[in-house]
């Protein structure tokens, strides 16, 4: 049962029409063509033909790199010493840490990630304003996995024409094993994808063994299942539907282009009027477009690029490859479809040229904001303290009076040691020099506090101001400062606090 039936009009007809001598006119109508753009329409299957050329090669390379990173990254090891995980990239939810090579971020420092996300978003804006939907066309996971799924599909069922014939044919043994092979392979890819995802959250070799033995945490199986399902569904089945109907980015991108953005464009001034080219016919008084529809056949989004820039176009550049191949064969210059700007297209139709402007207010703005954010992040990172102290004053009671008339305040002092070694501190109350400081659990008066590597230690600290020093307090609230000093290198950190007492009677 296939819910999506191939549209009758894209089944190849028997009689091939020539677009030029030796070049078949592919019998294809863009699913989302200018003429047939319905608000509500049943899905029509798209059978993208394999393209050959520079951009296809670039896309293979990008696919290899991005998938390689995704699948391999959790397996890379990084030695951090005995008590810490040795996985190079690990989102350790249990201990609220993010490890990335030498970088380690605690949960409360997640703003560094926010900064990275802001940089990524701005980067996306910048790239889009320079060269359109590069993200969508080359690196978006939806594009990469869909491409991978099409590779699998092509392996089992053949290229465009074979797939169309297979779908149109009756169920047979051949159709069953080809379809089954495709779906099983898709599921294997999906399981690998879901599997790789969970490895980012737990030591990969351990988790791999646990997953196989059925001992992994239930949440690992849930996410493995979730990502298996979504990879299969979105990459294998839904494909272009995700980009057209689910993704918000195509709607936003319209605000990111301008007349100077390099977009995948059909150079209508050169191509029109289009039409079949007969042998020996002059190229004078006609366009270079022979209407072979090679550009439509390779399009994974089912559009006709000759209709102009449109929402569905992810700008994957495969139509450029397809067209260049044809132009070579009819011995016309390449680049009938190419990266070009609206401005240049407009100028060219008046036999003029508009130079490419990479540096313009929009790109300058994005670049400078990116530079600013990067500078702020770098500053924050370089000034990141590897030692932190936080202080919480006891609420109930705020202070107690002791039998000898002295006043005491209780505090919870937390010392964070982000260094990968145990550090020893002493704690003092600066501004309350006469106060006596004692820590619950420590017998001596000026104890050395060990905080083990990459950890936090909470201390109950009692600060007592003797009766005869109470005169020096500033009424009910006296500001002072807890100072933690590393006994080894003398580095200090502090936190402001307040010593509370009764109002002067």
């Amino acid at each position, binding site marked *: 049962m296939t819910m999506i039936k191939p549209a009758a009009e894209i089944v190849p007809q028997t009689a091939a029409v020539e677009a030029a001598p030796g070049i078949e006119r592919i019998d294809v109508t863009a699913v989302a063509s200018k003429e047939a753009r319905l608000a509500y329409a049943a899905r029509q299957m798209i059978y993208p033909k394999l393209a050959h050329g520079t951009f296809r090669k670039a896309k293979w390379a990008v696919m290899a790199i991005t998938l390689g990173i995704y699948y391999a990254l959790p397996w890379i090891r990084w030695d951090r010493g005995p008590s810490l995980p040795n996985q190079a990239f690990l989102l350790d939810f249990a201990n609220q840490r993010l490890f990335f090579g030498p970088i380690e971020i605690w949960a409360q420092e997640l703003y560094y990630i926010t900064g990275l996300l802001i940089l990524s978003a701005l980067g996306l804006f910048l790239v889009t304003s320079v060269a359109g939907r590069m993200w969508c066309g080359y690196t978006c996971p939806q594009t990469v996995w869909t491409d991978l799924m099409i590779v699998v599909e092509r392996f089992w069922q053949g290229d465009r024409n074979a797939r169309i014939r297979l779908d149109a044919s009756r169920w047979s043994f051949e159709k069953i094993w080809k379809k089954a092979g495709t779906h099983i392979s898709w599921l294997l890819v999906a399981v690998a994808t879901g599997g790789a995802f969970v490895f980012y959250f737990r030591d990969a070799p351990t988790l791999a063994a646990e997953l196989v033995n059925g001992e992994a945490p239930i949440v690992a199986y849930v996410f493995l299942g979730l990502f298996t399902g979504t990879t299969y569904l979105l990459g294998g089945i839904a494909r272009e539907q995700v980009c057209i109907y689910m993704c918000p980015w195509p709607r936003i991108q319209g605000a990111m282009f301008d007349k100077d953005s390099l977009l995948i464009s059909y150079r209508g001034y050169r191509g029109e009027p289009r039409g079949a080219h007969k042998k020996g016919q002059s190229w004078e008084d006609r366009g270079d477009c022979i209407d072979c529809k090679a550009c439509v056949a390779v399009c994974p989004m089912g559009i006709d690029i000759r209709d102009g820039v449109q929402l569905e176009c992810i700008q994957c550049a495969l139509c450029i490859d397809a067209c260049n191949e044809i132009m070579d064969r009819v011995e016309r210059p390449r680049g009938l479809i190419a990266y070009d700007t609206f401005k240049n297209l407009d100028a060219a139709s008046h036999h003029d040229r508009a130079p490419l402007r990479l540096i313009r207010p929009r790109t300058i703005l994005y670049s400078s904001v990116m530079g600013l954010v990067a500078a702020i992040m770098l500053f924050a990172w370089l000034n990141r303290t590897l030692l932190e102290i936080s202080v919480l004053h*006891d609420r*109930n009671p705020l202070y*107690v*009076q002791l039998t000898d008339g002295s006043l*005491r305040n*209780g505090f919870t002092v937390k010392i964070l040691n982000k260094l990968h070694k145990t550090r020893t501190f002493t704690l003092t109350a600066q501004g309350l020099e006469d106060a006596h400081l004692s820590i619950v659990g420590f017998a001596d008066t000026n104890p050395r506090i060990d905080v083990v590597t990459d950890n936090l230690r909470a201390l*109950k600290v009692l600060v007592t101001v003797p009766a005869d020093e109470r005169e020096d307090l500033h009424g009910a609230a006296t500001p002072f400062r807890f100072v933690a000093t590393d006994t080894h290198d003398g580095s200090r950190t502090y936190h402001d606090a307040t010593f509370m007492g009764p109002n002067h009677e």
Partner: protein
Amino acid sequence: MTQKEIDSVTGVETTGHVWDGDLKELNKPLPRWWVSVFYATVVWAIGYWAVYPAWPTLSGYTKGYFGYSQRGAVDKQVAAAKADQAKYFDQIAAMPLDEIEKNETLMPFVMAGGAAVFGDNCGPCHGKGAQGGIGYPNLNDDDWLWGGTPDAIHQTIMHGIRSGDAETRDMAMPRFGLDGILQPAQIADTAQYVLSLSGHATDPAAAERGKAIFADNCTPCHGDNGKGNQELGAPNLTDGIWLYGGKAPDIEKTIQTGRGGVMPFWAGRLDPVTIKMLTVYVHSLGGGK
């Protein structure tokens, strides 16, 4: 079956229903995936009925194949948590109080447990932070009626104060006024003397007169110098910390009516290990001696 009619504008089949002579409804059935999901949920529901408690019966309800219940699940979790805690409980049970306080691995558990138990059982009178109130001692200071060592605190929690328990701490301040032991003027003088012990007397002459009365009536418990006696639960009167108020009228009322607050005993209500955790927690509040 009637002939299918195709709408000429949209090319879609109609349902055959016609209104107002020419208004026809297009046949747009629910998407097949939607219908499939719907039937899948029906199948799922049947499975659910079999596996989980589902249908009421006259005398109860269907228990489901696995006999699952939310209460049972909670019981399991509690049992699992208890099993996890058992190693701490065993250690705490076997260890003297002062050694628990020195044990770095046990202390976080003891303190967290003690704080929770304190909030549930002690907080209503002593306050969540053990800050106390009129008639209920502040446990954060170092002024203890019955002693602030771990053992003394443990004894107080186990058996209470004037609680009715066989081993309770059981001394009360007499009702000097109500029982006619002292006259109102004598009470006022005594109160001034008591205030003078912490340097707060407002009437030195009265305090001087009260000194003799104090010596006759109060020293057996509060001692010659008014420093109190923890064996008897007699408070130190010299430290400026007052359980029932430190103004002259408060003290006069105390002498007039006597005092004897009640603290319940917890032996038998809380298990011994919990009481030990509570003891260590209270001792750590800072009052500890």
